């Protein structure tokens, strides 16, 4: 067999191979050397990125005639069960190609950032091994041509999230968060696995080509009645798959793990929130959309069960998480809730059939969220440095540090993450401040110039259109998403202004910095004008800061320009770009999706709401920056009661802990182990054992009295019989003859009777 590995059909194998190879190499050979491990990891993902670009070009170039209707890929037989064969293979269609634009690039940037961020960590090599595996698993998932391989990547990512969230495993809160993430997602995963199994039974295959690209199969699935719950098989499978997404993409009610996932190092948060994990959940439902919508004509308002689930869950999550994000003071936790909220947008979009918009937002979100997380990582680094410096200067006693709790605690905010302790960081980490502002604007959907605006707008436009047709689901979606849009803009503004604006509120913020550009900045005329000369310029590793800041700049660029490929064709001026994304992605579906007619109302609505949110944020936190002793205006406006509810995350985590986890533990120890296993099952056994012992005792008695009695009796009887019998043998011949005669007579009589 002669395979040209650089053929578009085979290249995907190499794309996923290299990061996995890096993982293996680091684990087996280079773990001892930090530099080599770092190089191996970067090389692995770097090659994967280059190959992805090659693959992308090849796919686009090859499909010039009918954009996207060609599917590339190859597969091998993996295992045969009875008459059915499982295949493993790769597939590149327009959707995959679009993901290939984002995933390897985002991963590469995060890897590069990690070089700077993790520099002083003792488990540096291990970290790169894990994130290589993470990236490899995500690429496997994206490139898989069947649900089984997708699920393999899916679960391996679950493992990586566990390992990476709990990376600082000596911290109890870290490993608890790791388990929380793994377990919560696993609930969804198992439902998904049942769905996959059931799909295999009904469809006899898991191959995307044979299911998603096969109208007959989809019709068959939609017409087969499901074994339970009524409805069609497609609907049941769809709901089970959506359950997987609810876990993986952290949707209500399985959203609890993501806010705690920031216990891991910040690059990990960027991986989880942007390039991999949560994106994988949405990617899977985007991928399976033909199945999820099978048999339902959603353009006419007939939504299938999985779509209704997605629409409702997505809307609730988008709004609920946005509300919670307002009430957080931990910079990473704000971002975590914003991720949940934005994922809600995508899921809700799929619920109403806005397929292209969901994929579009998925990629844009990945870019700006990776940016935001990595920027927040720089902020935290700067703050940690500031704490250290401040402690050296002896200022820190002024500000009491909260005690670090043992394990996960809801309202504990590490001091370096606490935006209330920041302020004025603009002058200290300017590159970060500006790139984070760009990311924030993209997240908030700042009109026209940010990527986030275009994709969010497309979702809202689709929902608006549906609501206009009178579909209740679309109405719910559009209301929730618009409300969430205001809040998003507001909390983004709050976060940014509290972090970067005004004057430092603590000595730590005063001394914050990461070296690098800051030094030049502080010495600049502009800074001198702002009377910053007094601040000591810290001497830090400059290259470390470069590794962190360059990825931010690249992502900031993407956070703006990644959106222009998806502008509606009827939009003035920018519409001239001809919306290439829609055309391109549309080829993935059997029926090319038609874009809804352009409508000014949703565009205006979402623009105005975003501006309003940002405006309120500026008004409250920007016009008059928060001083060290000031109370948070949002907290004051909402009142202590509501604030407490937000801080406690609507009490959902507490509810789970109190009514699910604790009872399960209690039940395990007290009921299952003690009452059932020890007392009942072993008890029955003991009783049987005792019965046998008693029986043994009984037999022993029986033996001594009856058997031994009989036993002693029989020899006695034989003895006495013998004594009696001895008398028969007298030794006299006549007597013997008499016996013989009698015996003969008896025998004769017997024979006589028998003959008769």
């Amino acid at each position, binding site marked *: 067999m002669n395979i040209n590995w650089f053929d578009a059909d085979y290249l995907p194998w190499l794309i996923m191979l290299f990061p996995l190879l890096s993982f293996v190499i680091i684990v087996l050979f280079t773990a001892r050397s930090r530099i080599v491990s770092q190089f191996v990891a970067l090389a692995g993902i770097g090659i994967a990125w280059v190959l992805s670009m090659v693959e992308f070009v090849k796919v686009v170039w090859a499909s010039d005639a009918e954009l996207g209707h060609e599917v590339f890929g190859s597969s091998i037989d*993996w*295992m045969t069960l*009875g008459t*059915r064969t499982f295949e493993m293979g790769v597939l590149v269609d327009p959707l995959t190609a679009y993901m290939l634009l984002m995933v390897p690039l985002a991963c590469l940037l995060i890897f590069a950032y990690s070089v700077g961020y993790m520099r002083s960590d003792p488990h540096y090599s291990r970290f790169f091994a894990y994130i290589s595996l993470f990236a490899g698993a995500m690429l496997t998932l994206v490139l898989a041509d069947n649900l089984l391989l997708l699920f393999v990547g899916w679960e391996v990512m679950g493992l990586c999230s566990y390992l990476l969230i709990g990376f600082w495993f000596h911290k109890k809160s870290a490993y608890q968060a790791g388990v929380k993430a793994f377990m919560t997602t696993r609930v969804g995963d198992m439902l998904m696995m049942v769905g996959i199994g059931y799909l295999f039974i009904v469809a006899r295959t898991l191959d995307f080509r044979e299911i998603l690209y096969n109208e007959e199969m989809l019709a068959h699935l939609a017409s087969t009645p499901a074994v339970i719950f009524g409805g069609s098989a497609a609907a049941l499978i769809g709901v089970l798959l959506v359950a997987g997404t609810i876990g993986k993409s952290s949707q209500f009610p399985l959203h609890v793990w993501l806010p705690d996932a920031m216990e891991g190092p910040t690059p990990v948060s960027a991986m989880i929130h942007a390039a991999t994990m949560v994106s994988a959940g949405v990617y899977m439902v985007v991928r399976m959309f033909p199945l999820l919508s099978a048999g339902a004509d959603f353009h006419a308002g007939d939504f299938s069960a999985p779509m209704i689930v997605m629409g409702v869950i997505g809307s609730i999550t988008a709004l609920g998480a946005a509300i919670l994000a307002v009430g957080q003071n931990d910079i990473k936790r704000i971002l975590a809730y914003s991720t949940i909220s934005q994922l809600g947008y995508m899921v809700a979009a799929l619920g109403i059939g806005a397929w292209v918009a969901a994929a579009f937002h998925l990629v844009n979100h990945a870019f700006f969220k990776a940016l935001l997380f990595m920027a927040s990582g720089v902020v935290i680094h700067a703050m940690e440095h500031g704490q250290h410096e401040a402690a050296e200067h002896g200022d820190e006693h002024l500000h009491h540090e909260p005690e670090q709790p043992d394990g996960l605690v809801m309202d504990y905010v590490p001091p370096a993450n606490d935006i209330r302790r920041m302020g004025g960081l603009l002058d200290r980490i300017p590159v970060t401040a500006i790139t984070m502002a760009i990311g924030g604007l993209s997240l908030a959907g700042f009109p026209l110039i940010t990527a986030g605006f275009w994709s969010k707008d497309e979702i809202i436009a689709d929902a608006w259109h549906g609501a206009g047709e009178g579909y209740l689901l679309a109405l719910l979606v559009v209301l929730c998403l618009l409300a969430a849009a205001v809040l998003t803009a507001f909390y983004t503004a709050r976060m940014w202004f509290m972090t970067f604006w005004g004057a430092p509120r603590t000595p730590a913020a005063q001394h914050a910095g990461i070296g690098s550009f800051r030094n030049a900045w502080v010495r600049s005329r502009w800074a001198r004008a702002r009377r910053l000369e007094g601040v000591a310029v810290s001497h830090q590793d400059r290259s470390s800061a470069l590794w962190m800041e360059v990825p931010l700049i690249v992502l900031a660029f993407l956070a703006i320009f990644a959106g222009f490929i998806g502008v509606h064709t009827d939009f003035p001026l920018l519409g001239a770009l001809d919306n290439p994304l829609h055309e391109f992605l549309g080829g993935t579906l059997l029926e090319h999706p038609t874009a809804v007619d352009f409508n000014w109302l949703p565009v205006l609505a979402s623009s105005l709401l975003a501006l309003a949110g940002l405006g309120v944020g500026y008004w409250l936190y920007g016009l008059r920056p928060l001083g060290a002793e000031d109370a948070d205006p949002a907290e004051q406006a909402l009142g202590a009661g509501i604030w407490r509810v937000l801080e406690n995350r609507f009490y959902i985590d507490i509810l789970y802990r109190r009514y699910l986890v604790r009872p399960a533990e209690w039940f*395990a120890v007290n009921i*299952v182990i003690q009452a059932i296993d020890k007392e009942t099952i*072993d008890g029955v056994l003991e009783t049987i054992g005792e019965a046998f012992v008693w029986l043994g005792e009984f037999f022993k008695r029986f033996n001594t009295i009856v058997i031994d009695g009989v036993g002693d009796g029989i020899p006695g009887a034989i003895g006495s019989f013998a004594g009696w019998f001895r008398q028969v043998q007298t030794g006299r011949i006549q007597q013997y003859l008499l016996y013989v005669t009698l015996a003969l007579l008896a025998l004769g009589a017997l024979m006589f009777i028998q003959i008769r």
Partner: protein
Amino acid sequence: MEDISLVTVVLMLPLVGFFPLVFVRSLTDQTIRWLTLTVSIITFGASLLLLRNFDSNQAGLQMVTDWEWISAGSFTIRYFVGVDGISIWLVLLSTFIMPLAILFSFTSIKERPRLYYALLLLMEWAMIGVFIAQDLFLFYVFWEVTLVPMYFLIGIWGSEDRIYAAIKFFLYTMAGSLLMLVAILWLGNEAGTFAVPDIIAQIQSGELSFDVSTERLLFLGFAIAFAIKVPMWPLHSWLPDAHVQAPTAGSVILAGVLLKMGTYGFVRFNLPMFPEASRDFAPYIAVLAVIGIIYGAWVSYGQKDVKKLVAYSSISHLGFVMLGIFALNSAGIQGGILQMVNHGISTGGLFLLVGMLYERRHTKLMSAFGGIWAAMPLFSGISLVIVLSSMGLPGLNGFVGEFTILVGSAGSDVLSIWFTVFASLGIILAAVYMLYMFNTVYMGALDKEENRRLPDLHWQELWALIPILIMVFAIGLQAGYFFDFMDNSVSQLVEQVSGSVVATAGR
């Protein structure tokens, strides 16, 4: 004696080591260890030849040896051995686990090594015998012989409560076996032979048939013996005691191979000989299996002792195997057989790990550890892989088995889909207790003084674990190779079970 098959050679090899150990009194301890290890490795090598000579296109027995053993007028008892797709992996599992158990014992067993290693080899002989015997009587002999070495292993080299555990183990299993003996005698008497293939042929052709209640009684006679061995809920209570008290090698063998004798028995004897009863009983057995899955997982979760946790997890895993077998279709049974092998490898590995911890700290309480990862990075890394394999992480061996079993049970004609749903709950719980264990033992701060200077793996321990790691990945990534060997035999079995009533082959 002209046709000694390879199977017989594999069976007899352990005895080659056993006799010198018993009769030559002048051997030094070191010689004994190396002799035993060499013999077990040669046995494993010979069993690899089985793989090479095995023709996976053939459904029936291969490499058969069939000699008359006891002949008495109306019936004959034969030395009748061979392998087919159902037993070949279990034979290999036995020969694979044995060198690892022996290697681990090098450092941990100091007392009476001659007797110890002789018993291990006797054990291996009997285990191989169980999996290759095709004559009911011969099977019964091997089945009972396995009890004896295990009884002494637990009773002599076990921990504090060893006598209680050993007796419980022996009596419990023995009680079940006797019912089986009655069933075997009855069946042999009816059929005029003890050879299983002959009996199956008679049943399939209708030459030998029972009325419903007789068939059910016979089914139960075998089933109870096997169910105790598996062990199925609620007949499991001997297992945790035996495991916790047994020396590490004993636990490894017990979990790795002995438990599989029960599940294997169901596949080999109950399904083809009593197809009607198997179909009738399938839902009930599946209920017990699913209870076992959830129950075992739940009990594991509440444990404080690592070894007990692993022991109870076996109940959960073997519940999966039973569920797969009684799905009565190709996917289920193949998944079940593969899962037997997987469980042997993963849980065997887990017991080795627990043994290594115990060697270092002389305690098995989870609370005595914490933060081990910082002290023993290599050990912890390997542990993680084995823990994940036991949890069924895709890409590792456990997943393939569990997934196939779930596909089998979901597509089963005799089981409703609810079994699948509840069984998958067990997979979630598996992650709960395994990660709970991993977190308490390996993660967290290294805050106990005794744990700070724990030495990492030495070479014997490492080499006992490496083969396990290799198999974890080999089965996980190339499961197709393993299924290929079973395919034809299992298809034939499925046909036999489904009879003419419902053709479910391939489902």
